[in-house]
């Protein structure tokens, strides 16, 4: 796909997202915004797990850390644009710390180590009541006003989130096209060979974790402000699992994989719920079972995720 066709396609999709929102109901716009927020976190996870190959099951913890920072600072009347870098930097630093086990262990060990971090973070959110409000959470988180524009309305907040998503996506795109992106892929494909070629695998592993974590932290800020209330529940490790599955189902290590995967995880169940067609109603109860089967089937026949489908078909039909 040429760069021009790529840009044109992206522009069409973005224009559609901008225009369609005008005709959608309030609740649908809210769901779209929720999708965009989760997408920020899953794009970060795609960098950590998809491009750099570091299997992380702790993304929801960073998401939560960002959300709690936002809740506390926004309630203390900090401007939104000042909260963003704070959340990103804190998560970046914590990400480096959490990345350390990755230097010693790989794959499933790493998955469990990051999952362990997630459980600890969750326990801290529930028990450190003085800071986090414990299980009651923090309510009354304001939505921002930027440059005199009130972003409290559902449409305004959607456009603000979509714009931010595009900026974040652009930054990630640029990062992945830089020599860093190539080094991340080399780290995933073959760390031992990478090291023999002078690639500092320690630095890149930690960076992969930290950048992914920073994205989740930013997503957390948008989440807190969107829902206007947070409690520990959404930052349980099961959210990390869903985020990882979203990346993998969409296509890990593919730039648009998380967008598709997150839509399947966040939007599809709500679509089924809202439907009045009987068999779709049946689906909503069994949704997770079908999703689970889809994951298994994908792993067996299409481990590259849904976005690798065309490539796979090309290769089957091609001369090779």
């Amino acid at each position, binding site marked *: 796909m040429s760069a021009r066709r790529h840009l044109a396609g992206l522009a069409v999709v973005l224009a559609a997202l901008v225009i369609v929102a005008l005709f959608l109901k309030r609740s649908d716009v809210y769901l779209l915004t929720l999708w965009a927020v989760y997408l920020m976190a899953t794009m970060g996870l795609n960098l950590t797990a998809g491009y750099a190959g570091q*299997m992380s099951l702790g993304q929801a913890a960073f998401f939560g850390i960002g959300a709690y920072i936002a809740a506390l600072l926004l309630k203390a009347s900090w401007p939104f644009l000042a909260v963003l870098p704070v959340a990103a930097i804190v998560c970046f630093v914590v990400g480096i710390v959490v990345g350390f*086990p990755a230097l010693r262990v790989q794959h499933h060990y790493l998955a469990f180590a990051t999952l362990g971090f997630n459980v600890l973070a969750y326990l801290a959110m529930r028990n450190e009541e003085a800071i986090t409000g414990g299980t009651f959470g923090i309510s009354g988180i304001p939505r921002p006003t930027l440059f005199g524009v009130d972003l409290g309305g559902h449409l305004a907040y959607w456009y603000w989130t979509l714009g931010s998503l595009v900026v974040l996506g652009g930054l990630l795109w640029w990062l992945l096209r830089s020599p860093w992106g190539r080094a991340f892929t080399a780290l995933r494909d073959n760390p031992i060979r990478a090291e023999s070629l002078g690639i500092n695998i320690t630095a890149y592993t930690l960076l992969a974790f930290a950048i992914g974590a920073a994205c989740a932290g930013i997503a957390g800020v948008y989440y807190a402000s969107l829902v206007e209330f947070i409690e520990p529940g959404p930052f349980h490790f099961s959210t990390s699992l869903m985020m990882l599955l979203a990346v993998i189902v969409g296509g890990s290590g593919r730039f648009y994989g998380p967008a598709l995967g997150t839509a399947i995880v966040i939007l599809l169940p709500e679509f089924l719920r809202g439907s009045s067609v009987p068999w779709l109603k049946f689906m909503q109860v069994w949704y997770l079972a079908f999703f689970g089967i889809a*994951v298994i089937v994908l792993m067996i026949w299409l481990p590259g995720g849904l976005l690798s489908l065309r490539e796979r078909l090309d290769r089957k039909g091609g001369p090779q």
Partner: protein
Amino acid sequence: MNDFIQLIVSGTATGTIYALAGLGFTLLWQASGTINFAQGEFVMLPAFIMLFCMMAGAPLWLAFLLTCAFAMLVLGAGFKKVIVDPLIHHGVIPLVIATLGVAMVLKTVVRAGYSAEAQQFPSSFPAGQFSLAGITISYADVGTLILAAAIVIALQVFVTRTMTGRAMQAVAQNTDAARTLGIDAKRMVLYTFLINAILATVTALLITPTYLAKFDMGESIGLKAFFAAIIGGFNQTRGALLGGVLIGILENLVGFYWSPAYKEGVALMLFLVVILWRPEGLLGTAEERKV
């Protein structure tokens, strides 16, 4: 002092349960390099199958035997054939993800197909307890402990003393070499899957009276089982037992002497310490990083 011993005793009883579930993890890993994220659900499903059998009028022992057969067929052979065999050559991660999918399917099937509510489950041991030097011990604790210890020892004996067991171990250590010695590697791997299914059923029989039969009962047991296995040493059968009991006891001590709020974090802390300090586990032997 009595309190302390009481905590140790009940912690040991809880820990052996973690160990039983963890044992299956290590077996599958050793024999076939399978990491099963659905191990907890492999315990949950037999609990419900036993319930169904009993609702149909079967006594507990018959329900257990029928469920063993079911588990060997579905969670043993079926799991291997449908999920593991097609995926095992693609490395660890796709299989891990697929077993996550299996866990979701099993949970949803039980929840949507049967009930989201906890169901009670009869104990295999007589109710009641006895006191020994001021410490209360229930018959169920003693029974669980003895049965779990017996299973671990029996498994150890089977693996080291019998022909089939030694063949299984040979396959676990070096599949190719075992094959050249004329061992039917495929059959040995199948045996480990069958043993894992039976272990899961036994675990279900032992824990469901306290855990209660519920679709999500596998979540915590699966996690603890994995931590137990890693802490003890992933490539050692005894490791899971040590890891499980260590977690059980420490959880109780932390819950009592420090704060119950962080009790659930104990296994994780121990796990993080172990993988940073001794990644092969307390009893495990180091595996060279492959070039």
